[in-house]
C-alpha cells in the first residue's frame, strides 16, 4: 500500500453495520425510550425500541387496591392528559355498576377531556418543532399551555394529575366565573394555532424534513393497530367521538381532520387542526352547559357530597363503605375513549369483590410503538428523530 495511496484497491473497501443506541437519555425520546439502531452508513437497516424503563406495575397494583384507590394510578399513565385516563376508568366502572351519569357531568367531562387533548397536542407541537431545531414554537406553545393549566388549577386544585373525576360524575361543577374565562380562552385559542402554523407549517426546512418521511398507508396502519391522529393522517376518518359517541359528543358540532399521505407532515397537520376543533368543542360545551347535578345520586357507588359527610351519620357510613369496600357486580367491561394519542381502552374485570380482579390498559402509546420499525427502516438516521416525534407517545402510558 506504499505506492498506491491515490487509488484504493477494490478488495480492501469494507463497510460494517454499526449499532447505535438512541436514548434512554436522548432528548427526543420523550422520557425513557431506548431505540437500538443498526446503521449501514447513514441508512437505518434495523431498529428495536427497548421499552420498560418506566414500568411500575400499574396493572398489578390494581389487583391489590380498591376501585376508588386506583384513580390515583390512572393519572400517572399518560401524564400529559391525566383527566382522560380518569374519565376512561370511571366510565368502565360506571358500566360495571350500572351508574347513570347526569348530563352536566358528561358536559363537564367533555370540557376536561378536550382541555387535555389541547395540552397534549401543545406538547407535541412544541417538541416536534424543537427536535428539528425550531426553538421558538416551544415557548409559544408553553405560553398557552400555562394559561390553560392556570385555569384547570383553579378548578381542580392541581396543575397536573388532577384526580377530578369521580364515579358517577365529577368532583365539582365549573364555577360561572371560571367557565366564562375558560370560554374566553377557548375562543381566543384558534388564533394562537394560526400563529403556531405561521411559524412552521409553510417553513421550507420543516416541509423538507417532514414531507414524505415516515409514510404509512391506511391498510398498514389498521393492521398495526394504530389509532388516533396517526391513523387519521393516513386518510381514515376513524374517531371514537364520532363512531361511537360517549359523554354526549354527538351534541357538538366538530369535524374530523384527515391527512392524505400519512407522513410526518400529515400527522402534524392533523394535530394542528384537531386543536382548533377541540377549542370549538370546549366553547360549545361551556356555552350550553346543562343544568342539574354534577354527580349522580347513587348511594351504593357514588361518593356523597362532602358537606353532608361532615354532618350526617348516614353519609359518613356510605363514604366509608365506598372508599374501602365498594363491590361492583361480577362482570367485565372494555371501555374505549378517543384520547389524544389514539384509542385508550380499559378492560376491567370484577369478580364481585372490593378489588378489581384484573385491569388491563390498552395504551395507545404502546400500540403506536410498533409502527416505529416499519416506517424507519430504509430511511436516513436524521429522519428517525422527526418520525419518533411524530408518532407521539408518552412512556408512562407505554410502560404502565
Amino acid at each position: 500500500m506504499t505506492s498506491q495511496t491515490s487509488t484504493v484497491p477494490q478488495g480492501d473497501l469494507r463497510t460494517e453495520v454499526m449499532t447505535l443506541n438512541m436514548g434512554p437519555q436522548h432528548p427526543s425520546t420523550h422520557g425513557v425510550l431506548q431505540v437500538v439502531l443498526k446503521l449501514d452508513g447513514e441508512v437505518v437497516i434495523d431498529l428495536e425500541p427497548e421499552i420498560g424503563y418506566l414500568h411500575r406495575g400499574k396493572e398489578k397494583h390494581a389487583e391489590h387496591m380498591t376501585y376508588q384507590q386506583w384513580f390515583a394510578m390512572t393519572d400517572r399513565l399518560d401524564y400529559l392528559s391525566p383527566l382522560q385516563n380518569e374519565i376512561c376508568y370511571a366510565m368502565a366502572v360506571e358500566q360495571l355498576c350500572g351508574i347513570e351519569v347526569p348530563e352536566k357531568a358528561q358536559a363537564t367531562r367533555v370540557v376536561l377531556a378536550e382541555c387535555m387533548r389541547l395540552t397534549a397536542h401543545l406538547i407535541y407541537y412544541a417538541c416536534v418543532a424543537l427536535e428539528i431545531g425550531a426553538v421558538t414554537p416551544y415557548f409559544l406553545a408553553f405560553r398557552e399551555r400555562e394559561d390553560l393549566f392556570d385555569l384547570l388549577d383553579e378548578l381542580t386544585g392541581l396543575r397536573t394529575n388532577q384526580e377530578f373525576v369521580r364515579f358517577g360524575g365529577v368532583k365539582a361543577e365549573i364555577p360561572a366565573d371560571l367557565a366564562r374565562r375558560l370560554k374566553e380562552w377557548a375562543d381566543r385559542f384558534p388564533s394562537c394555532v394560526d400563529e403556531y402554523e405561521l411559524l412552521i407549517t409553510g417553513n421550507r426546512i420543516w416541509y423538507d424534513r417532514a414531507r414524505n418521511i415516515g409514510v404509512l398507508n391506511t391498510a398498514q396502519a389498521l393492521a398495526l393497530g394504530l389509532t388516533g391522529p396517526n391513523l387519521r393522517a393516513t386518510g381514515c376518518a376513524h374517531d371514537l367521538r364520532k363512531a361511537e359517541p360517549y359523554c354526549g359528543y354527538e351534541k357538538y358540532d366538530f369535524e374530523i381532520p384527515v391527512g392524505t399521505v400519512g407522513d410526518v407532515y400529515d400527522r402534524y397537520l392533523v394535530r394542528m387542526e384537531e386543536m382548533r376543533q377541540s377549542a370549538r368543542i370546549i366553547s360549545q360545551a361551556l356555552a350550553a352547559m346543562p343544568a342539574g347535578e354534577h354527580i349522580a345520586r347513587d348511594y351504593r357507588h357514588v361518593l356523597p357530597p362532602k358537606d353532608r359527610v361532615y354532618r350526617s351519620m348516614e353519609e359518613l357510613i356510605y363514604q366509608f363503605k365506598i372508599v374501602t369496600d365498594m363491590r361492583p357486580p361480577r362482570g367485565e367491561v372494555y371501555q374505549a375513549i378517543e384520547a389524544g394519542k389514539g384509542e385508550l381502552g380499559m378492560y376491567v374485570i370484577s369478580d364481585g369483590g372490593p378489588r378489581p380482579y384484573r385491569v388491563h390498559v390498552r395504551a395507545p402509546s404502546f400500540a403506536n410503538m410498533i409502527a416505529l420499525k416499519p416506517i424507519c427502516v430504509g430511511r436516513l438516521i436524521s429522519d428517525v428523530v422527526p418520525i419518533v416525534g411524530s408518532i407521539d407517545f408518552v412512556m408512562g402510558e407505554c410502560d404502565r
Partner: protein
Amino acid sequence: MSAAREAAVQRLHDLAVAAGGAPLPAANDGLTALSVPREGLLGLLASLRDDPQLGFRLFLDVTAVDWSGSEPRFEVVYHVYSLDLRMRVRVKTRCSERDLHVPSIVTVYPGAEYFEREVFDMFGIAFDGHPDLRRILMPEEYEHHPLRKDFPREGIEPEKVYRLRGGPMMPRPPGAEAIPGAGSTTP
C-alpha cells in the same frame, strides 16, 4: 341495533361455532364475545378480518387473565374493531398451565407483536409462530411472571444482578447486600 349489525352478530356466532367454539353471553359492556379453542383461533380471526360482511381490520388489543384455581387456568383475550360496522368484538381462548402456549396472531394482525410479547412477559404464555418472543417490559433475565396471581405485590428481587460486558448474568456473591429499597414489603 341496525339490521347490518344484527346480521353481523349472527355471522360471528356461526363463525365461532364453525371454528369449534361458541358465542359467550353478553358482558356488561354489551360486546359480542366469542369463545374459541386455540386450534381454531387463527382461522376465526382471519375470517373476522377477511369476511366482506364483517371486516374487523383494526387490531386493538391482546391481553390475558389468570383465573388461578380454575382449569384451564389462563385466558387470552383479543379485541378487534370493524370500521364499517362500528363494532368491537371480543374473542377468548383458554390454555392450561401444563400446556402453556397459544398460536400467535402476528400473521393476521402484525400489530399484535408487542402485545403478545407483553403477555409472554407478564404471564409466561408462549405464542407459537411469534417472530421475536422475548420479554418486553421486565428485564430479559428476569425469571418470574408478575401478573400471575401467585406473584406477590411487593415483587421478587432478581437473584442474578451482575453482568460482565457481553457475558452471562452472574449470581449475587454470598454476603452481598440486596439493593437497598428493592423488593421492600410495604403492605
